[in-house]
Structure formats: structure tokens, C-alpha cells
């Protein structure tokens, strides 16, 4: 079942790569799209098989592989990985659809995209540490090549930087995994087996810090983030979509799955530091974004900032905050993918991403009015305006983290305000005002260019209005993960002298029920 998500794209990639008829880029695109849509369809089928009341791993598959190494082919999905797997399948479709139809070397390009999707799915599904590491490393190759071959002017620099950083990340993670098995003396890398092992706190902390740095590069945590803007700027639009949408999530997913999951006591010790780093990420990313003039850099740095919210919620590590982290991962994945798609259209039509050059693109006849409107929707979603998924995701993050890290949470709220500053700047500069003469003859925008962004926007609004669809899948798993760490007592961290909170006994209110709403909610969630 789960293997299909990994092997169908691999099979497809092989076919596309080696059959000569796919050197026609349109045909290669259609074939890749068909495979990606099949994978997405399969993912939807898996959703229907998923039991949300079960907090543990589901749909598991196990095959022995390299027994002496402790490497088994063990796959499984739970509430933590399911939303990410779904989003991965979805974003691969979007990315392939929005690829340049006349791309050079289409066979290699589409094969790499499918491989990338497959490796990312594999990493999310792997329940063996070595297997995870394999997928985690495998995903680098297609991504590196996608940047290095189809990237912008400085693609060599950016791709190499990306490779070096993320390879370092992989080595650190591997080191931590080895350390763990070595020190616990278990002869397997299976997650479940390792989870039940106990280590002295000091050892745990060392291993966790190693993991933190390893995954921190991927997330990225400040100051390990500088590969990200370069990679984004040079990467083509579909690559950026996957990079921002999925690849960064590997870092936070890894932290939750392996950091929190394997070292809960150490997590509790390091959590305040992690929360502090989250604040730095949010504020630092936002401040740097304000000073940028390249639209892609603005969006890239906003990713640095917004991944900070995931870190914050992860640090709090309560059941609700884990759920919040998952929600924020999906929310950020969708929103940043949308923003990159839109920036991509702007770039492909105008030839620039410089907000000091762009102006007046909302012009209805000669500009990019619909793209501009979607951009406004996208930046508002990113800025946490209600009605879109960004708001509810951020609110749940704040709400869940506040009780553990009040000051850090309030500082992160400031980051939301700064998001408004840089994104408003972007929209006002590039889209408002009079269209200048040098942009008066832009090529036509087709529905093909708009469709991916429209779909993303609809999804973002839908999840904003019906957030149950976002959170339902992960409740059980988050609760289980969140219970691993006894929640740090509030009085230790609380800066506000919160004396004796009086519990509220809500007054008895005559509530009128709204059958229409309840019915909708029920029907909406009766998929399972």
C-alpha cells in the first residue's frame, strides 16, 4: 500500500528517463503528470483507509533488507506523517503541472521530479532510522540536480551550497542515529524498538543536540539558514515549490519524530532553548525579509520566519502544540508554495523579480491582475488574516505554546506583524501603482499559468474555513507524542506573575443548536 507512493513514481521516472519518445517535452510532462496524479489518487485512497482514532502507526509494511545493519524496509504512517505525505503528493502534481512546457531535457527533468517526490514520501513513511536516512539523502540528488541544471545564473554556487549544507545535515543525523544504537546496544534501527530505550539524560542531550543541528540545517534554523535564500533564488519555480513546501518540512518532521520521539526527557531540557531559537528565527527572518528587494528572497526569508512557528510549537511539546506544529507545517507548505508559484508567473512574464522595478502589475489589461489578486490572497494568508489557513494554524500555535512559553510566544506574534510589513511592501510596490512603460508589453497570461495558483488558493481558503480537515488526522498521534514529555510547569517559564488563575465555571447558557452546521461538520468528517 504505502510502497506504491514510493515505487510508482520511481517506476514512472525510469520509464520517462529511458524511453526515447519522452524527449518530446509535452509528452514527458503529460506522462509525469499522469504518474503524479495517480500517486495523488493513491494517497487519497490511503486517506480513506486511515483510521483517525488510532494514534499509532498504520498500514505498516515490513520487509527484511540488510539484517546485519539493522536496516529493514519498514514503512508506516501515522497522524504526524499523513498530512505531510498527502501534501507531498499534491505539491508534486502542482509542481509538475506548473513546469515550463518547453523545458530543456524533459526526460531527465521529469524523472528527477518524480524521484524527488518518491524520496520525500519515503522519508515520511520510513519507520527505520537508516531507511529514513537513505531517503533523506536520496532526495538531495534530484533536488541538487534540479537546481544545478535548470537553475538561474548562479545555480552552480547555490546548488553546491545546498548540497554541502544538507549533506552535513545528513552526516549529523546519521551520527546521532549511530550514537543512539551504539549506546543503547540495540541491534536494529527500527523506530519502535529504539523508542522504548532509555538513556542517561546527558547522553540524550548530546544526541539530541546533534539531531537538532542536523535537522536545523534543513528547517532551517538561524544561523544555519543561508543556503535557503540562495537555493530558492536560483531554483526554478516548481523546484522552489517543492523545496519550500516539502523539503523544509523534512527537518521539522524529523525533529518531532526522532528528536522528540526518541529523546523526550532531553527535549524537555532543551525546549526553552529551542523556543528561543524559534523567536530568533521568526524575528530575524522577518527583519531580513523586510530589507530584500528580490521577491523570491522575500518569500524565502518569510519561510525562515514562519518555520519558526513550527519550532515554537514543537518546543512546547504539549499534545495541542504538536498538533499545532503539524498544522503550521501544512499551512506553511501550502502558502509558501502558492507564493512561489505566483512569483514564478511574475518572473516568467516580466523577466524580473525586483520589487523596485516592478510596479502596477494589477493593471487589468496589460498587467497580471488575477495573479496580483491571488498574490494579495497569498500574502494575507501568510500574514495570518482569518478566513485562510494561515490564521488558524498560527492561532493554534500561539494558543498551545503560550501556556508553556508565554514571552517567546508573544515575541513570535510580533513576527506576524512584521510579515505584514514585508509582504505589504511587496504587494504595494509590485502590484499597485501605474504600470510603467517597460512593463507595458508583457506576454499573455494563460489559464494554464493561473490554474495551479487558483487551486492552491481555493485549498488555502477551504482549510481556513474548515480547519477540522487539517487537524483531524493528527489528533491521536499528537496527543501520544505530546504526552511523552511531562509539560514543563508554567511557573518556571512564566514571566507574567500569573497568580492563581481562577477557573471558570461557564454560566449555564441556553444554547440554540445549529443543525445545519453540525450536519455539515459531520458529513465533512464522515470520510473515515
Amino acid at each position: 500500500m504505502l510502497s506504491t507512493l514510493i515505487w510508482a513514481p520511481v517506476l514512472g521516472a525510469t520509464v520517462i528517463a529511458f524511453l526515447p519518445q519522452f524527449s518530446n517535452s509535452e509528452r514527458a510532462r503529460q506522462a509525469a503528470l499522469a504518474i503524479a496524479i495517480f500517486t495523488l489518487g493513491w494517497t487519497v485512497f490511503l486517506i480513506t483507509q486511515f483510521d483517525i482514532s488510532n494514534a499509532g502507526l498504520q498500514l505498516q509494511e515490513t520487509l527484511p533488507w540488510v539484517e546485519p545493519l539493522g536496516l529493514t524496509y519498514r514503512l508506516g504512517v501515522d497522524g504526524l506523517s499523513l498530512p505531510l505525505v498527502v501534501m507531498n503528493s499534491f505539491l508534486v502534481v502542482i509542481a509538475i503541472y506548473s513546469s515550463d512546457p518547453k523545458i530543456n531535457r524533459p526526460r531527465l527533468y521529469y524523472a528527477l521530479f518524480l524521484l524527488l517526490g518518491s524520496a520525500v514520501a519515503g522519508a515520511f513513511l520510513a519507520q527505520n532510522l537508516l531507511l529514513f536516512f537513505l531517503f533523506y539523502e536520496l532526495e538531495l540528488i534530484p533536488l541538487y540536480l534540479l537546481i544545478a541544471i535548470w537553475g538561474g545564473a548562479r545555480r552552480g554556487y547555490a546548488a553546491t551550497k545546498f548540497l554541502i549544507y544538507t549533506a552535513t545535515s545528513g552526516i549529523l543525523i546519521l551520527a546521532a542515529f549511530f550514537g543512539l544504537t551504539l549506546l543503547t546496544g540495540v541491534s536494529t534501527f527500527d523506530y519502535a524498538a529504539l523508542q522504548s530505550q532509555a538513556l542517561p539524560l546527558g547522553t540524550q542531550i548530546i544526541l539530541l543536540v546533534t539531531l537538532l543541528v542536523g535537522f536545523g540545517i534543513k528547517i532551517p534554523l538561524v544561523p544555519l539558514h543561508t543556503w535557503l535564500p540562495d537555493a530558492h533564488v536560483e531554483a526554478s519555480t516548481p523546484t522552489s515549490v517543492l523545496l519550500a513546501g516539502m523539503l523544509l518540512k523534512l527537518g521539522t518532521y524529523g525533529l518531532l519524530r526522532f528528536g522528540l520521539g526518541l529523546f523526550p526527557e532531553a527535549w524537555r531540557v532543551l525546549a526553552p532553548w529551542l523556543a528561543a531559537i524559534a523567536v530568533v528565527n521568526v524575528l530575524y527572518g522577518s527583519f531580513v525579509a523586510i530589507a530584500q528587494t528580490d521577491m523570491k528572497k522575500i518569500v524565502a526569508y518569510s519561510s525562515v520566519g514562519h518555520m519558526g512557528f513550527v519550532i515554537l510549537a514543537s518546543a512546547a511539546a504539549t499534545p495541542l502544540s504538536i498538533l499545532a506544529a503539524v498544522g503550521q507545517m501544512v499551512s506553511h507548505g501550502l502558502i509558501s508554495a502558492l507564493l512561489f508559484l505566483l512569483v514564478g508567473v511574475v518572473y516568467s512574464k516580466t523577466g524580473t523579480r525586483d520589487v523596485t522595478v516592478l510596479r502596477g502589475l494589477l493593471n487589468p489589461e496589460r498587467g497580471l491582475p488575477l495573479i496580483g489578486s491571488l498574490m494579495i490572497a497569498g500574502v494575507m494568508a501568510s500574514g495570518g488574516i482569518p478566513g485562510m489557513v494561515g490564521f488558524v494554524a498560527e492561532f493554534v500555535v500561539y494558543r498551545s505554546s503560550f501556556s508553556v512559553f508565554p514571552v517567546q510566544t508573544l515575541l513570535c506574534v510580533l513576527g506576524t506583524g512584521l510579515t505584514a510589513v514585508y509582504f505589504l511592501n511587496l504587494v504595494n510596490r509590485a502590484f499597485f501603482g501605474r504600470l510603467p512603460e517597460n512593463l507595458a508589453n508583457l506576454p499573455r497570461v494563460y489559464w494554464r499559468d493561473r490554474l495551479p495558483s487558483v487551486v492552491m488558493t481555493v485549498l488555502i481558503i477551504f482549510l481556513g474555513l474548515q480547519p477540522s480537515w487539517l487537524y483531524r488526522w493528527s489528533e491521536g498521534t499528537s496527543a501520544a507524542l505530546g504526552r511523552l514529555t511531562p509539560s514543563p510547569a508554567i511557573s518556571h517559564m512564566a514571566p507574567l506573575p500569573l497568580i492563581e488563575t481562577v477557573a471558570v465555571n461557564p454560566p449555564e447558557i441556553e444554547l440554540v443548536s445549529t443543525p445545519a452546521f453540525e450536519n455539515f461538520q459531520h458529513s465533512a468528517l464522515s470520510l473515515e
Partner: protein
Amino acid sequence: MVSLTQQPSTHPLADMIHCLESGGALLPDSPDNVLEVVGVLKSYGVVLDAYSRNLIYIAEQQFLVLFPAFKYFDGEVSLKKLLRHWWHDRINYEYAEYCMKGMLWHGGGGLDDYLDSAEFSRRTEAAIQAKVGGTPMQLLHKLFSNFLPEQVRQLAYYSGLGQFWRVMSDMFIDLSDLYDQGEVQTIADVVAHIRDALVEAAALPITYAVTIKGQTYEIIPKSVGLTFLADTALPYVEAVFFRSFPFFGTVSYNAQAHQISEKPGDFSYGALFADPLPIGSAGIPPTLLMQDMRHYLPGYLHDFYMQGLRGEDDLRVKICISFQKSMFCVTTATVLGLMPHPLDTTDPVQRQENRTHLENWMDRLLTSRLADVQSE
């Protein structure tokens, strides 16, 4: 034809002046330009025909109607027409009223003077009494004694502009017919056609009368002596080609920002000045005209537009660019029609007077889009 006896002009637009003196136009001659100008004037002619009929209908049949909900229906109200009206599948007569308001507000010419005269007040009062006498409106008329006369002034402009556009519409349709017959081939032919038609219509009388309860009230009798060229055409050129109003969509009305001149005479927001790019945006009234014209483009012009980068997507901007070109042809015709002396005169004094005449016009066009239509 620049004579050796006359010094070249030192005006910043000297090239244009010399071009006009040697029989040229404000728009360079090229087959594309002729195609665009004639094509767009054809659709403009169709639209003006509708505008003109409606303006005259409102002036005559909707005289002081308090709730003229059906003023755009030209008297034929049917369910089908009503539904189409509500669906906004119609000519945007609002634009005609916008031009009318431009003329009313900016004034100028004999019509404007007449509206402040005692004769106008006398004739208007009679018509008002006939219309509202014995209704509650009379009380309002007593309280706000200038309310209804001001409405009649506006209606006089409805009528005046309607009569002006009647002539212009026919002129443009004729031009298109001649083009179709192959008799118009250059910009000079276009200009000559318009100039001749303007000169021919110059002395047409402008009058306005309404029928109330079976009796006809002359608001502007023929005896006032208002004529087509001096009292509608020139004020129209001034108000619509040159001045117009600042667009909400591009100019701030904030008094502290001082973006709008305190003198309406300094306004330069008219058809010869406006930027075609924002057409279609919010707060750009000429969009309405371009929208109306898109329905009546001749096939050859539509095909020509389809060759552009964006096809149908930026149709209205392209129409506006062509329209602006055609308006420079109309301006050329007006300038030439108003020349104090024949263009080919050899009398140095007359030549100098012609030169001064041209320089005065060019002063007004300094900041216009003249340069842009040269290059395109």
C-alpha cells in the same frame, strides 16, 4: 513647403508646426495608422450615434423628470430591454453624460454665456412653471430657486452635445464608407474629410426646445444664434480633448496634496493627454467608451488587434491607443479648419499669422501624448 522667406519656428514643437505647414498632420501617415484611425472612428461613429440619440432623448423627453430610471431606454421600455439593461449588456451612456458634464463644468463658448442670460432665465422659468406648476415640486422650486434652472442648464448641454455628436457620428461613418470604397488612403485624406465636414457644419444652428403638456417651449431658440462650430465643437474640444476631469483612479483629490490645479483652465486630463495604459482599471471613466467601441470594431481592425501580444486581453487599451491617434487627426482637422488664412498663402503677414495660430495650439499640446503617437 517651408518658404525661404520665413524663419523656422523656435517653438519646442517646431517640427510639428513645420509638418502642419507643409500639409502634414499631428499623426504620421502610415497604412497601419490609417487602418487604426478609420477603423476606430467607424466604431466611434456607431457609439456616438447611440450617445447622441440618447442625449437628445433625455433633453427633450426626460425634461425635469425626478426619477429618470428609464432615461437610457430612449422611450422603448420592454421586459427584454430591461433585463438586458440590468445585465449591463448595453451602451454605457454614462460616458456621454460624463462628457456633457465636462462641457457644462468647464463652460466656454456662446452656449455657456447664454445660460447665464436673462433670456434663458425667462424662458426656463416658463418651462419650469409648465412642468411643475401645481405639484409639490413647486414648493421645492420656491425654496431652492436655482435647483431647477441649474437642471435645465444641464439639459441644455445634453441637447447641445447630442447635436454636436449627431454631426460627428455621421462624419465618421461617412469616412469609414469612403475608406471601404478605397477613397481614403492616407492620414491626409482622413484629416481633409473631417476638416471639410467640420467647415460644412460650422454654421449649423444649435437649438433646444421641449414639449410640455402639448406646448412647445423654446429654451434655446434659433434667434440666439448658437452655432455648431463655435458653441459646441470648440467648447467640446476644450473640455473633452484638453481639460476633462482628473480621474479618481490616477489623481489624488486630497486638497492638502495639491495634485489638482485650482484653475480648471490648467487641467490637462483630456483625450489628447490621458494615458491609455490604465484603461480598464478602477477609476478610469474612458474605459466605458472603449468598452462600448469594442462591440463595433470593423473586422479588419479586430484582426489587426489580434496580432498583438495579448490578443483579446488588452483590447480596450489598444482601442484607446488607436482612439487617441484618431483624436489627433480630429485635432489636426480642427486646427487646420480654424487657420486664419489658407495654408498655401504666400503673403508673409498671413503666413506669420498662420504660424502664430499653430504655435498657440502647439502650446496647448506641449504635455500631450503627441510624442507617443509619433513613435508608435
